[in-house]
C-alpha cells in the first residue's frame, strides 16, 4: 500500500534541482526546439533533429535514463509513424524516392510531405521526451510542495496528491473485482461483445464502492480540521540544492544563443 516518504534524498546535482528550475529548463528547451525547427538545410529540420540528442545525454547525467527509456521508446514509435504516414500518404509534387515493391506497385516518398512530417515528428519527440525527463527527475510530491509554497491552496494540493494515490488504489481494486467476477462466471474472453459485457460488472462495483468511500473520507477530513482556516503545517519540505543559478544560466545561454542565431539568419 501507499507509504509516506518524508524525505527525498538526491545526491545527483541535476536530479536534486528545485522543481521550478527543472520546469524552466524544460520550457526553454521546448521553445528552442520550436525555433530550431524553422532553421532548415534544404528544407530538412536538421538542427532540431540534432538537438534531440541532448535529451538522452541530459537524462543519463540526471540518472533517470533507465526510468524514462520506455516513454522515449513509445514516443519514438509514434514519431516514426508520423513521418511514414506524412511522407507516403500526403501527396505533393516532388517525389523524393520511389520504392518498387515486387514490380507490383510503387511506394512514393514525397519531399515536401516528408519534410513536414519530420518537423512534426521531431517536435513531438523533442517536447514529449523533455517533459518525460521533467517528470522523471521530479517527484510529484516535490512539485506539489513547490507549488504550495508559491501560494497554491491546500485544497488543490490535496486533490492533486490524493489523485495520484487513488489511481494506484483503484487500479488494484479494478483487478480484484475483475477476478472476483471471473470467479463468479463472468466471461472475460471471447469476441468483442462478450468482452464488452464483462466491462460493466467490473466497472459498476468499482465506482459505487469508491463513492461510498468518498463520503467516509469527507467525514474523516472534516473531523480532522481540513476546512479550518489558518496556517497549515507540513511534514515534507522541498529545498533548493544550491546549483539552481548555474543550471538556469546554462539554459538561458543556450536559448539566447539559438535566438541570436535565428535572428542573424533572418537579417543576413
Amino acid at each position, binding site marked *: 500500500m501507499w507509504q509516506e516518504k518524508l524525505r527525498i534524498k538526491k545526491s545527483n546535482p541535476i536530479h536534486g534541482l528545485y522543481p521550478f528550475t527543472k520546469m524552466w529548463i524544460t520550457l526553454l528547451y521546448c521553445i528552442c526546439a520550436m525555433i530550431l525547427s524553422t532553421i532548415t538545410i534544404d528544407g530538412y529540420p536538421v538542427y532540431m533533429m540534432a538537438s534531440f540528442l541532448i535529451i538522452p545525454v541530459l537524462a543519463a547525467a540526471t540518472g533517470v535514463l533507465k526510468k524514462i527509456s520506455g*516513454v522515449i521508446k*513509445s*514516443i519514438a514509435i*509514434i514519431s516514426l*509513424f*508520423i513521418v511514414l*504516414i*506524412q511522407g507516403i*500518404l*500526403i501527396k505533393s509534387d516532388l517525389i523524393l524516392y520511389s520504392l518498387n515493391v515486387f514490380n507490383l506497385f510503387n511506394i512514393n516518398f514525397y519531399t515536401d510531405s516528408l519534410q*513536414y*512530417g519530420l518537423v*512534426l515528428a521531431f*517536435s*513531438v519527440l523533442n*517536447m*514529449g*521526451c523533455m*517533459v*518525460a525527463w521533467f*517528470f522523471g527527475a521530479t517527484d*510529484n510530491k516535490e512539485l506539489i510542495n513547490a507549488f504550495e509554497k508559491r501560494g497554491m491552496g491546500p*485544497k488543490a494540493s*490535496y*486533490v*492533486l496528491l*490524493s*489523485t*495520484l494515490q*487513488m*489511481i494506484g*488504489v*483503484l*487500479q488494484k481494486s*479494478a483487478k480484484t473485482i*475483475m477476478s472476483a467476477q471471473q470467479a463468479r462466471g463472468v466471461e*472475460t474472453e471471447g469476441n*468483442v461483445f462478450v*468482452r*464488452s459485457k*464483462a*466491462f*460493466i460488472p*467490473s*466497472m*459498476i462495483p*468499482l*465506482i*459505487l464502492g*469508491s*463513492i*461510498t468511500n*468518498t*463520503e467516509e*473520507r*469527507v467525514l474523516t*477530513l*472534516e473531523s480532522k480540521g*481540513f*476546512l479550518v482556516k489558518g496556517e497549515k503545517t507540513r511534514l515534507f519540505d522541498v529545498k533548493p540544492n544550491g546549483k539552481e543559478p548555474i543550471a538556469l544560466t546554462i539554459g538561458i545561454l543556450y536559448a539566447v544563443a539559438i535566438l541570436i542565431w535565428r535572428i542573424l539568419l533572418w537579417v543576413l
Partner: protein
Amino acid sequence: MKEKKYSIKKDFTLLALLLIPIAVAINFAGGQLASLLKLPLYLDTIGTIFVAMLCGPWVGGLAGLITNLVLGIANPIYIPFAIVNVAVGLVTGYLARKGMFANWWKWIISMVIMALASIITAAPIVVLMFGGITSSGTSLITATLMATGAGIWGAVISTELVFTVLDRIISFGITYLILRVVPERTLIKFSLGAAYIKTKKTAETVEEVTEADEDVDNL
C-alpha cells in the same frame, strides 16, 4: 422547480473536491479495464462524465484536465488531449444543468452533442500536432482511409466519429446504470444529484419501500 443559482466556488464543495480524484482514478481504471479486455476503445472518460453529471461543468472540466495531466506524467503525448477531456467535462456538466438527462431522447441528443464536442476538439490536435497519428490502434484505420485517397481531415474525422460515438454510448450507458444504483442519500449530497432521484421515483422505489416495510414487519 425553482431555478437554481450556480457559482464556480459553490460547485467545489468538499465532497466534489474529493470526488475529483475518484473521477480521475475511474478514468484510469476504465482505460485499464478496456485494455485488459482488449476492447478497441479508450473508455477513459467515464469518470469525467460521471462527476460532471453530479457536480456540474467546472468540477467535470477540472477532473478531465487533471486526468490528462496525470496521464502525461507517464506519457506526455496525452497532455495536448487534455482539451478534449476538459470539453467532455464542461459540455456534460452544462447539459446536466439544463436537465438534458431527464429522459431517453434527451440522453440521445446529449450523447450526440458530447460526441461532436469531442471530435471538434480532438481532430485539430490529431491532424495539426500529430499528423493524423495517435498511439491508439484506430490510427491504422485512419492510415488505411488515407491510403485509399481520403484527405487527412476526412480520414481523421471519420475514424474519430465512429469510435468516439461508440465510446460515448458505452460510457453513457455505464454512467446511467451507476446513477440508477447509487443510493439516494448519497445522490442528494451532490449539487445536481437531485435530478437523478426524480427519474428513479417510480413504482420500483415504492415497491422497495413496501418490501422494506414488510421486512421490518417480519422481524
